[in-house]
């Protein structure tokens, strides 16, 4: 069976986001079947059998996650849709919400039917004003057409969907951080256990799923778990959106089967490295992933293969850097982000992210010492796995891998009195910043 696009087949067509268009392509048929013909447990089993894995970054099996939600509780259950897409290099959920919002809503209906949820929140990144408006319009339309509300699609199933806009914090994309933010508190992660499936939003059992994950559901019901598993590798099957940005001729979002080669993705789909330059480095899964060198790019873009290569699929945000990139500046850029976005709750992350940025900055402006390279590695070691959420890991992974794999760039910056860009701008000051250390 040849690969069929499910998220992006019509995105270049006029009014592709409208309900009428969506329904003309068979939209909401799977939701209707799920509501009227399927038993909740069968839905969960099918998603488990399809081995759908979360597209937000961690790759947790979706059906298993649903199974953790207690069946009999006297509290309401919630679905929190993570649309806070803020991982640097990632812009796939945005496309779904802006071009195909009803696909997400259909996925939401199927998930809610499977777990017995009657209220879903969509936590959308604050900067996505256009996407939030599109989504809200789609929801309003779905209510007026009886797709959402008291009797979803003519069944006796009740479902409300609420859009909650974020306020610009990266940490609110972390699942428990997102839940505290929806609750109206300062968005910062909570201790686990209890896990959201047992005690999540407003203290009630909550499923937290990514936009792209939910958008897979209608297709799984349509073709069945067995066919779905044939797309891409057995362990992480399915169609996947890959975001390619950076130094390529044709950056953008590409819908391809899971497991496509990173080299193929860059060279064929994204038009290759721009300006005829050579490839230097690739971050394959959003800025939180370990960096890959040009030699390491013959790897399949799926969860297992990238893990085996010492990095991760993450959010599939592929950032391509050409040979002119100074990795000292790249490190500084990434560390500035994590320093800015650390919520400040846990000591290792609060202090470590700032420390890493300061070291990177010092090296970039000519104050670096050769022992700083070991220091970065040791600081990273002291951050990984020692905090409530994974933000410390997300900052440490790129830092330690960039310093390890591109050590020569750092040594050069230390010896030449700063990164090439700094030296070019401050030729007279070269080495001057080193003096005060």
């Amino acid at each position, binding site marked *: 069976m040849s690969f069929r696009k499910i998220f992006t087949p019509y995105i270049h067509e006029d009014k592709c986001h409208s309900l009428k268009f969506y329904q003309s392509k068979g939209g909401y048929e799977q939701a209707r079947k799920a509501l009227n013909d399927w038993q909740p447990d069968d839905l969960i089993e099918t998603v488990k059998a399809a081995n759908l894995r979360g597209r937000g970054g961690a790759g947790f099996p979706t059906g298993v996650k649903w199974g953790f939600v207690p069946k009999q509780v006297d509290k309401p259950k919630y679905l929190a849709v993570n649309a806070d897409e803020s991982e640097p290099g990632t812009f796939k959920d945005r496309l779904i919400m802006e071009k195909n919002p009803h696909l997400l809503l259909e996925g939401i209906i199927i998930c809610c039917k499977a777990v017995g949820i009657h209220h879903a929140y969509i936590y959308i990144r604050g900067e996505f004003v256009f996407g939030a408006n599109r989504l809200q319009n789609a929801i309003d339309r779905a209510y007026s057409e009886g797709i959402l509300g008291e009797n979803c699609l003519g069944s006796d199933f009740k479902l409300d969907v609420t859009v909650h806009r974020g306020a610009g914090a990266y*940490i609110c994309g972390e699942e428990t951080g997102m839940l505290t933010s929806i609750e109206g508190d300062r968005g910062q992660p909570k201790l686990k256990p209890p896990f959201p499936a047992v005690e999540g939003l407003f203290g009630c059992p909550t499923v937290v799923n990514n936009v792209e994950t939910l958008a897979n559901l209608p297709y799984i019901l349509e073709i069945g778990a067995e066919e779905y598993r044939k797309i891409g590798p057995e362990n992480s099957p399915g169609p996947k959106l890959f975001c390619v940005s950076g130094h390529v001729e044709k950056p953008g979002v590409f819908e391809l089967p899971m497991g496509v080669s990173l080299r193929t993705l860059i060279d064929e789909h994204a038009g290759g490295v721009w300006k005829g330059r050579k490839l230097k480095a690739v971050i394959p899964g959003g800025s939180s992933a370990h960096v890959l060198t040009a030699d390491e790019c013959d790897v399949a873009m799926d969860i297992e293969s990238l893990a085996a290569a010492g990095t991760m699929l993450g959010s599939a945000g592929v950032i391509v850097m050409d040979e002119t990139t100074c990795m000292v500046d790249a490190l500084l850029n990434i560390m500035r982000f994590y320093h800015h976005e650390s919520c*400040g709750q*846990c*000591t*290792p992350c609060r202090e470590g992210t700032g420390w890493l940025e300061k070291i990177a900055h*010092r090296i970039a402006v000519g104050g670096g010492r050769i022992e700083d390279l070991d220091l970065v590695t040791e600081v990273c070691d002291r951050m990984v796995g*020692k905090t409530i959420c994974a933000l410390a890991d997300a900052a440490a992974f790129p830092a330690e891998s960039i310093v390890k794999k591109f050590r020569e760039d750092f040594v050069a910056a230390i010896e030449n009195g700063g990164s090439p860009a700094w030296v070019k701008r401050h030729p007279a000051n070269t080495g001057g910043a080193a003096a005060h250390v």
Partner: protein
Amino acid sequence: MSDSNSTVRWTLNGTEVENEAGMTIMEAAKVHGVDIPQFCYHPGLSIAGNCRICMVESNRSPKPVISCSERIAEGLEIKTQSEVAVDARNSVMEFQLINHPLDCPVCDKAGECVLQDHSYEHGPDRSRFVEDKNIRHTKELGPTIDIWGNRCIVCTRCVRFCDEISGTGELCVVERGDRSVVDVFPGVPIDNSLAGNTVDICPVGALISSDFKYEARVWNMDKTSSVCGGCSRGCNVEVETLDGFVKRLTPRENLDVNDWWMCDHGRYGWRHLYADSRLESAQHDGQAVSPTGTSGALHQLLSSSSSTAFLVDPYMTCEELHLVRSIANSLGGSTIAGWLPAAGTEETFPGGFKISADKHPNRKGAEHVLGSDLFTASADQLKSALSNGSIDTLVAFVGGDGFEGAGGEWNDLISKAGKRIVFATQQGSWCDGADLVVPATAPLEKEGVWVNEDDRAQRTRSCRSLTSNHFPSELVVLQELQVHMDLRNRPLSAAGIFRELSETSDAFSGHSHSGLGDSGSPLSQRPAAMSSEGGHS
């Protein structure tokens, strides 16, 4: 497997141990003598799990786990001294210190600072941090609380205290990352009756009491375990003095009374000890009496009295009241009544802490020693006896903070007695024209037992330095009077008097000073077979 569901068998540092199910690793380890360091954990607050200093190695997790929140389980193996655990602790200490100003020489917390203690034990001896440190705000958060933001380690104990215990929620963390710091909302200062506790629970010198700021180095102060006299709750406190002068009060943990807290009325309510109007020496007909001559003058006045009445206050200890009773009994035909200051307002807090409306630390004790109608029927009788002039000599105790004497009505009535002997803490109209004015001890200067509103007997101890030249306490003066009256051979300690009380009073029988210890005991809970003890403690 363990024999019952309520115990869990687990392994701590290679030794198999048992604990009650449901305990956290930190609590359970403490039972076995293993102290795990902590910053954000406080037994009275919810678990935040943010400081990470309590990380230990677990066989159930690839990463170190935080022992404040992880619970023990059957078969769990925890190592607190393994390489993983030690490195986790050391790394947290290094991170805590990189942006900390290390201004211990000018910090009021120095000497009792958790960060100092843990740094000494787990921290590096030099810093690898060569960058500029972050600067955060230093400002007033409220009338009694300042913040030194640079010192803050964002443990959120103070924030959780205001959310959970005082329920006032003034504090919050503002900013993110290493810019995070505790602050108040604009125009909403921290101003609640429990605010002072936030300074006590701050593990570093970030929250500072503006009352204690720059007053003393904590290691130079002497500590006395006492009881607050601000209300009938009887919060256990530590009175800290420098060169004999009180510098601050801090709460002392007592889970049966005040948990870990005390209110600001009590905390800052000791200034009257050093008021200008404080009485320092006895006055007989306007002439100063030497400290050793006070009891003689007292005896002289009482021995010529035809009818004597005693007016006691609810700040007096049970021992003092017992002495008054025995003196009154031997004089014959004398009456005893008590006065009560006006009731205040009761304040209760979401965390369970209560400030009692009854502002009398020993009303219950006075009723046990001198009868339940002491402040009611007896007081009414004395009032009418004083107004119709049938009292020849009145011995009035006017204690507490003493700025208002015994209150308007009593102050007028006191002056209607023929002869007046006034034990007072402060100068005032109640001393004018008195035949003998005797300086009295205030709460925090008394040695003895108070009984709080829950009928709990607790020892209040004097913060007065033994070496300073103080006037003798009522406990001494009254006993010396007994010596003059041939009722006693020599004065005893408060513990000795309490033993006499316990031998003559049903309410106190079986109790002793040493039995009450530091945290007191309900009067109904009598220790078994401890009667022979307590004379000379």
